[in-house]
């Protein structure tokens, strides 16, 4: 019984993906026929999406923005989390609360000043404009701090005795010990930025600067009823995410658990 219900549920969960892929390999007239399997299999839709739209460029933009943001987040969030967890200095608690309090501010509130700021400084429609809001995250700082706090002090003292610099202690002793947390944070940051829509929609103006979500959203608006093209573009956008998911499933699930139960 449980198995039957779960199978039914899986059907509902997987149906949109299946339908998307099946529609994407059908020639245009066939997509309105509602046959499950295509009568005639075609790669034409993919060819059009890849060759005649800005798809590859948008894909590259997303890859660039998500990768750079993730690297920055991993470095700065772990350094900040480490400092707040393991180093002694005046004002530590105040700084921590200050950073944490920013979690309550909704993005909608920030995008308006970010837009004004970007307009005044010429960041609109630039990679820097796309990047800057996400370079360091309060959530990641919090997560990393929690992890660094659980490590035994002896390890760090040993590093000090061996004559490592403060940065050396963080880099050579701290970081390797929190690798699982780094993996979870990295994957979530990457996916979050890969899927981001609101800010890129605001800061991007020309088709060349679109990220993938903005690209397919506006492309579908322009493509109108060319559902086979839209489905091909969507399939191509979903593919890397699902690949990342199947390779890093364990870390992703652990990440959700961390955010939910310790957050």
């Amino acid at each position, binding site marked *: 019984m449980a198995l039957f219900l779960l199978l039914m549920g899986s059907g509902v969960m997987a149906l949109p993906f299946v339908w998307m892929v099946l529609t994407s390999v059908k020639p245009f007239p066939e997509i309105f026929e509602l046959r499950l399997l295509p009568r005639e299999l075609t790669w034409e839709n993919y060819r059009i999406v890849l060759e005649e739209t800005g798809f590859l460029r948008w894909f590259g933009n997303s890859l660039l923005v998500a990768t750079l943001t993730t690297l920055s987040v991993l470095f700065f969030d772990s350094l900040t989390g480490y400092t707040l967890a393991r180093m002694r200095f005046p004002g530590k608690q105040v700084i921590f609360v200050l950073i944490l309090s920013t979690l309550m501010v909704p993005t909608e509130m920030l995008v308006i000043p970010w837009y004004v700021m970007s307009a005044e400084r010429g960041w609109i429609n630039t990679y820097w404009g796309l990047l800057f809001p996400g370079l*360091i995250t309060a959530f990641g700082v919090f997560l990393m701090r929690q992890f660094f706090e659980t490590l035994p002090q002896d390890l760090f003292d040993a590093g000090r005795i061996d004559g490592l610099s403060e940065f050396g202690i963080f880099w050579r002793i701290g970081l390797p010990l929190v690798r699982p947390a780094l993996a979870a944070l990295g994957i979530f940051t990457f996916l979050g930025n890969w899927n981001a829509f609101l800010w890129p929609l605001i800061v991007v103006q020309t088709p060349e600067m679109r990220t993938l979500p903005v690209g397919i959203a506006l492309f579908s608006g322009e493509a109108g009823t060319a559902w086979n093209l839209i489905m091909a573009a969507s399939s191509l956008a979903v593919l890397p995410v699902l690949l990342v998911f199947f390779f890093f499933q364990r870390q992703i699930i652990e990440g959700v658990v961390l955010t939910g139960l310790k957050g």
Partner: protein
Amino acid sequence: MRLRLSQREALWAFAFLVIPLAFFLYFRILPAFQALWLSFYQWHTDPSQRNFVGLEHYARLLDDPLLQRALWNTLLYTLLGVPAQIGLGLSLALLLRAVPWGRELFRAIYFAPYITPAVAVAWVWSWMLSPHFGLVNELLSLLGIPPQPFLQSPAQALPTVTGVVVWQNLGFQIVLFLAGLESIPRQYYEAARIDGAEGFQLFRYITWPLLNPVLVFSVVIGTIGYLQLFTQVVNLNFTDQGGPLNSTLTLALYIYQLAFLRFQLGYAAAVTVLLFAIILFITLLQLKILTRRVEL
């Protein structure tokens, strides 16, 4: 010597924190205050012509029918979506624990939509929900149900959007609940069984109360998520953003429209302040409920 060591450590700490602190002050805290500041001004691209209007925008909030629509819709999304995703998530998590095999595979299938780009999800669903060529209506007709307008009807659009969002969030809920269930010690169930409890009683007196922190977290995170609903709403009704007769308009979408389509940045900022106030209230409420639980 000891003092100098601690001073050295403090200096290093500040050196590590310079960039992150500057970032948070400049890109998070300052903009939050700028939004507040903007909400008292009439927006103009030329800074010298931004006139102070005091509380005028806030007065306008009180009788803006579109804002009320957006608020009302947002409330509806939350009331429909949060219980639905929690109820389904918990049921599926319990089912998953009952099956002997394939747990990981099922979990992966349910989780996949959560990390899929919302834009792509929205487009696939709006294609499947299309009244004339949509797969969903085709499937309904197999059950003898007449075609439904879904996203194109003012009455059905909002519940339909909610359904898509619940579909997308379900995996997240399931994983959270699975972890929560995992953390309940087995001895509790064994002890209760010895005392004669069974079936639903076990759920009612052990699972449910011990799952409480996860539930509170899910309600709060879910609510905040629905308060910020944007991408799905925009893309499910792309040509008719906000849905037929604004039936799917959300606060976040209204803010976007005001600020970036009508360039009323001052008034839009006032709406964001309202949104911030609501989120602050919910977060504080969560803290209060959770700390009270711990004290008990």
